[in-house]
């Protein structure tokens, strides 16, 4: 079923593979409801978490997923400073190889780093976010959440709101949702629309009022606060006025629309607190589902002949 030893992005997956991961994740979600949440399939395997960018949520989620599967986990937090000091990516790769890890979960600020590491034989590389390229497990857990709430994909409309240009979450979700037949809208200021993104089959809106109309799913993105100084928008206040998700705006979507966010949220910048904590928010469910999805990914990749 799974062809590649690595999970580099959603781009590379077929819709069958995506469904297979979601089905597998459903099984693990049941495991997570048990009293004893640990199962043995990865016993004796080693997962190396290699995070070149700060991340608590994703790293913890992967760590817990690996532990639930009985793998040994080593965490390398590589602060940016040691890169400056000169340990090259090549040396990092050689080190991982020498340690005999079976999986590398990698997050890096440069797009393409997981692809670089995937040249190492006998190791499965899982992309936990590379630059503005992809964050495939985030998209998979988002799909899982949509599926569990909506029961289907085809016929749904999703709006992704925020800084699309710099967002790997947006890209992975665009690939994932369009592959499964969801209509995708992006809503953002024209300064944050990636070049020729329309070719991916998405509809582009610069207004929440137009873009949110009758959607089933709203995916808010985290806004990096330093974007303001780069001239993408004049102030956080103005950004919230134009693109913040408020209760008022939420009414434009379908009554049963769900509100998602990959976290961590900037309350009052991209999303109003009452919406984040409101009945349509599935943000915490996303976190729980992330665990099941990451278990599924580790489990399936372990089954690929290397």
């Amino acid at each position, binding site marked *: 079923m799974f062809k590649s030893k690595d999970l580099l992005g959603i781009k590379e997956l077929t819709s069958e593979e995506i469904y297979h991961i979601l089905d597998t994740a459903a099984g693990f979600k049941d495991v997570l409801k048990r009293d004893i949440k640990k199962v043995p399939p990865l016993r004796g395997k080693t997962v190396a978490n290699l995070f070149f960018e700060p991340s608590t949520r994703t790293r913890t989620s992967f760590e817990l997923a690996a532990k639930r599967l009985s793998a040994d986990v080593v965490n390398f937090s590589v602060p940016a400073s040691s890169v400056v000091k000169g340990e090259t*990516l*090549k040396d990092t790769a050689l080190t991982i190889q020498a340690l005999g890890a079976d999986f590398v979960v990698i997050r890096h600020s440069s*797009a*393409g780093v997981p*692809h*670089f590491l995937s040249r190492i034989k006998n190791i499965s590389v899982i992309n936990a976010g590379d*630059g503005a*390229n992809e964050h495939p497990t985030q998209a998979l857990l988002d799909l899982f959440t949509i599926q569990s709430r909506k029961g289907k994909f085809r016929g749904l409309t999703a709006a992704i709101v925020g800084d699309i240009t710099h967002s790997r979450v947006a890209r992975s979700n665009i690939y994932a949702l369009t592959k499964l037949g969801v209509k995708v809208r992006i809503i953002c200021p024209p300064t944050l629309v*990636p070049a020729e993104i329309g*070719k991916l089959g998405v509809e582009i809106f610069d207004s929440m009022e137009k873009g949110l109309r009758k959607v089933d799913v709203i995916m808010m993105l985290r806004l990096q606060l330093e974007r303001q100084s780069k001239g993408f928008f004049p102030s956080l206040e103005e950004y919230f006025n134009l693109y913040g998700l408020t209760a008022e705006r939420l009414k434009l979507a379908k009554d049963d629309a769900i509100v998602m966010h990959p976290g961590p949220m900037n309350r009052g910048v991209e999303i109003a607190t009452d919406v984040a904590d409101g009945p349509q928010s599935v943000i915490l469910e996303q976190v729980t589902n992330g665990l099941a999805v990451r278990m599924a990914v580790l489990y399936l990749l372990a089954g690929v002949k290397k």
Partner: protein
Amino acid sequence: MKILITNGRVIDPHSNTDGRLDVLIEGTKIRGLYPEGSAPKADRVIDASRCIVIPGLVDMHTHLREPGLEYKETIKTGTMAAVKGGFTTVCCMPNTNPVNDTMAVTRFIVEKASKEGACTVYPIGAITKGQKGEELAELEMLTRTGCIAFSDDGRPVTDSLIMRRALEYSKIFDIPVISHCEDLKLSEGGVMNEGFVSTIVGLKGIPNAAEDIMVARDLLLAGLTGGRLHIAHVSTQGAVELIRTAKSRGINVTAETCPHYFTLTDESLVSYDTNFKVNPPIRGAKDVEAVRQGLKDGTIDAIATDHAPHHVDDKNVEFDRAAFGISGLETAFSLGLRLVEEGVIDLMQLIRKMTLIPSEIMKINKGRLSEGADADIAVINTDKKYRVDSSAFLSKGKNTPFDRWTLKGVVEKTISRGKVYEWD
């Protein structure tokens, strides 16, 4: 020592020669061209059967990295790579360490090249001191010591007033100001072409406008000053169109492009292979087509390599951190032959753009195959195929996107000022 090259097809754009002739070399000069079999006796006869015999290629845009960056390339290795690629003249850019902005550096290059160079080397001096774009370098002293053009290549001259002054002041010497056209604010942080491909690979793009804006500015300044402007490494449709219009209005401008800009599109970048990382970036299909049209109609006068050798440690890193540049001397002519094969330009035009025209732009007495000229000759089998093997490059820079490509055009022999270079 007399050497006779026989049985070859002699092509010389300067005299518009294309035919079966024998070429006799005496010492470092060409003694003459003779109808087959009628040349005087020689000490050595080179059989050029199945080959073209052409003026040694002239590269008006080369990075030799010496002084200061010898781990990437030296004058010796760079010129060895040049002759392997059929070049007998290279013009080296000043972005060394120290920058070639003084007589001392120019002299060093000239002397080193005369001792160790496999071919002729002409230095290009910096436009501004330290290539900082603030004050003009001492252009007269640089010219006197041997610089044949000025450029801050690798960086644009961002200050329009300084660029104006450079174009004005260089008129004293009637030598070109070579402009690296890039708006640094628009290109900031960019590592590849901005477009659909940059969107799907998630790398920061450099828009065409970053090049076009500076081309437009420099063309306007050339119009204002009447200075001799040469646009380096043209990569965009917009730049081609702007130059075409400027030429039609009589502005004193010439332009070059490089093989990667008429051969590759940014689709190649999906592999994240840093050997495709170059500045300006490899562009989209429309731009490639425009560059080819520009070569065809003469808007783009010359083909240069922008040979930019790098050490593997500068390339085998994150794409964002990798050095920009392609090691180009050893594949340039073969890539040019693809244009001939595809009917974009004919063989005579290709040779002209790689010999005579760059020599004329640089005002150097090179790129001709005629009696009395320097014995700079390339003997190339244009039908013979080979597989590019970067590990076998004579350049220290193995950074080519064309590794393992099958190309035509094997340089059988290169003769540089009468010295014969040949390889197994």
